[in-house]
C-alpha cells in the first residue's frame, strides 16, 4: 500500500491513480472544501510536506480550481488535491494552522487569483505592490493602462 493510500485510509477516499511517467503525479483527489483540513491533518501526521498551494482559473466552465500539492521525503508520492469553487467569489479553507509554510503560498495565490482563504491569520499581499486592485492570473484580466500612481 502506498503512503498516500495509508494516509487517506480513514477518509474513505479513493485517490485517482495517475500514470506517474506521463504526469509526474502519483495521485489526484477531488474533494469538498470542508474535507481539506481533516485530510491535511492526516497528511501532516504521516509526514507529507507541502509543495505548494495554487489555483487554475477556467473561464469557460466558470470554475476556479484550488490546488494543493504534497509530497513525501521518504518515498516519492506526489499528491494533488483539487477543490472546485465558483470563480466569481472563490473561497477555500486555509491550512496555515497545520502547515505554517502554506501561509505564504496562500497569500500569493490570494492576490494572484482573488481567492479568499478562510481562517488565514495573514491576509496581506505578498509579491504585488501594495496598491494593486487587480488579480493578474485570472483569465479575464486585462492589462491596465500604464499610469503613475506614485513613486515606488
Amino acid at each position, binding site marked *: 500500500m502506498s503512503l498516500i493510500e495509508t494516509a487517506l485510509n480513514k477518509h474513505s477516499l479513493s485517490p485517482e491513480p495517475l500514470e506517474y511517467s506521463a504526469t509526474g503525479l502519483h495521485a489526484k483527489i477531488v474533494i469538498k472544501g470542508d474535507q481539506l483540513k481533516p485530510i491535511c491533518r492526516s497528511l501532516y501526521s504521516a509526514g507529507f510536506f507541502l509543495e505548494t498551494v495554487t489555483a*487554475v482559473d477556467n473561464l469557460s466552465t466558470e470554475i476556479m480550481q484550488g490546488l494543493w500539492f504534497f509530497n513525501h521525503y521518504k518515498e516519492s508520492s506526489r499528491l494533488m488535491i483539487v477543490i472546485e469553487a465558483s470563480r466569481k467569489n472563490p473561497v477555500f479553507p486555509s491550512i496555515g494552522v497545520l502547515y505554517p509554510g502554506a501561509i505564504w503560498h496562500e497569500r500569493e495565490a490570494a492576490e494572484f487569483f482573488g481567492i479568499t482563504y478562510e481562517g488565514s491569520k495573514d491576509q496581506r499581499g505578498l509579491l504585488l505592490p501594495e496598491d494593486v486592485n487587480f488579480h493578474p492570473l485570472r483569465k479575464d484580466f486585462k492589462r491596465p493602462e500604464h499610469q503613475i500612481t506614485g513613486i515606488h
Partner: protein
Amino acid sequence: MFESQTAPTYHLETVEEQENDFILNLGPQHPGTHGVLRVILHMDGEYILTADPVLGYGHRMQEKIAENMTWSQVLPYMARMDYLSALSYNQAWVCLVEKMCEYEVPRRAEYIRVLTTELNRISSHLLWFGAFLLDLGAFTPFLHAFEDRETLLDLLESLTGSRLTYCFFRFGGVGADVDAAFLRGAQDFVKQMHTKLPRYHELVTGNVIFRERTRDVGVILPFDTWGYGLSGPVLRGSGEQYDVRTSEPYSIYPELDFNVPVEQSGDCLARYLVRLNEIDESLKIIEQTLANMPEGPIKSKVPKIIKPPEGEASMAVETPRGELMIYAVSDGGKVPYRVKYRVPSFANLSIFSKMARGQLLADALAILGSLDLVIPEIDR
C-alpha cells in the same frame, strides 16, 4: 516517528511594544540580504523579537509571462529566475515538455545535460561559499572561491555562449556538442577542485571563529521541516536524506553512483558542510559522465511548433537550492494554459522568521546567508 507528532499551532507574531524596543529596516538594498529582500525587524537591543520578510521587489509575474508565450519561448525566461543555476531550470522546463509530448532524448544529450548541470551546481555552491563567508566577515575565501568559479564560467561560456543566464538545453537534446577542448577543461577542473576542496576545509571549516559563528546558530529542528516544505541543503542539514535526483530520478541519475550528504545538527554549520560535501559528490558525477560519455546524436527530431496534448503534468528537479517543481496545464494550444513554478528558496525563506526569533542581529545575517537565497527566484 511521524505518528507521535501533533501539529503545532501557529500564531501570527505580535509582540507588545515596550518602551525600549525599536523597528529596524533591513534592506531592500543591504549586502547581507543578497538581492532586493527587505526584512522588518522588531528589535530589543541587539536581539530580534520578530522578523517579517517583505518580498516582491524583483517581481516580474513570470507565470503570466509564460501564459503569453509559446512553449519554446518560455525557455529563456527560466534562466532569469535562478540566475545561479540556470541549467537546472533549463532542465526542468525541457523535461516537462518532453514528458508532455513524449519526445525522445539521445543518450549523449542526457550525459551532456547532467555534466553541465553539475558544473553549474558547483559554480553556484562556490559563489554561495564565498558570499556566506563574506557575510561572516571573512574576505579571503571569497577570492579563492571566485578564482575557481572563474574557470568554470569560462568553461561553460565556451560551450553555451553565455556566462550566467544559460539557455542551452533544447527540447529533445542540447544546443551544441561538447568538443575535446571542453572535455579536457572539465577534467582539469575536476583535478583542480580535488586539490582545492581540502584547502577550503583547512582554511575555513577548522577555523575557530567560523565554527563559533555558525555552530548552534539558526537551528532547524527535524519536525519543522515538512510543515514549511523545506528542501535542498537546508533540509539535508536537518537530517532528512531527500534529494529529487534519487527520490524521483530523472535523466541518467539512476545510473550514476553518488551519495546524498546529510548532517544531523540543523545549524548553519550543518548546511555549510552539506554544500561543501555536495561539491565533492558533483565532482564524482562529472568524473563518471566524462568517463562514460557515449557517441551519437545530441538532438532528436522534434516539431518546430510545439503543441503538447491537452492535460496536466508536473516535473521536479533538484537545483542547488532544493526542489524545483513546475506544474503546467495545456489546452492543446501553442501557449501554456497555466504554469506554476514551485521554487525552493520561497519555502526555505518562509521559515526565516521562526529561526530569527530571539537571535542576535549578526546571527540573523549568518542565518540568511546559510539559506542560500536567490531573490529573483522567490519573487519570480
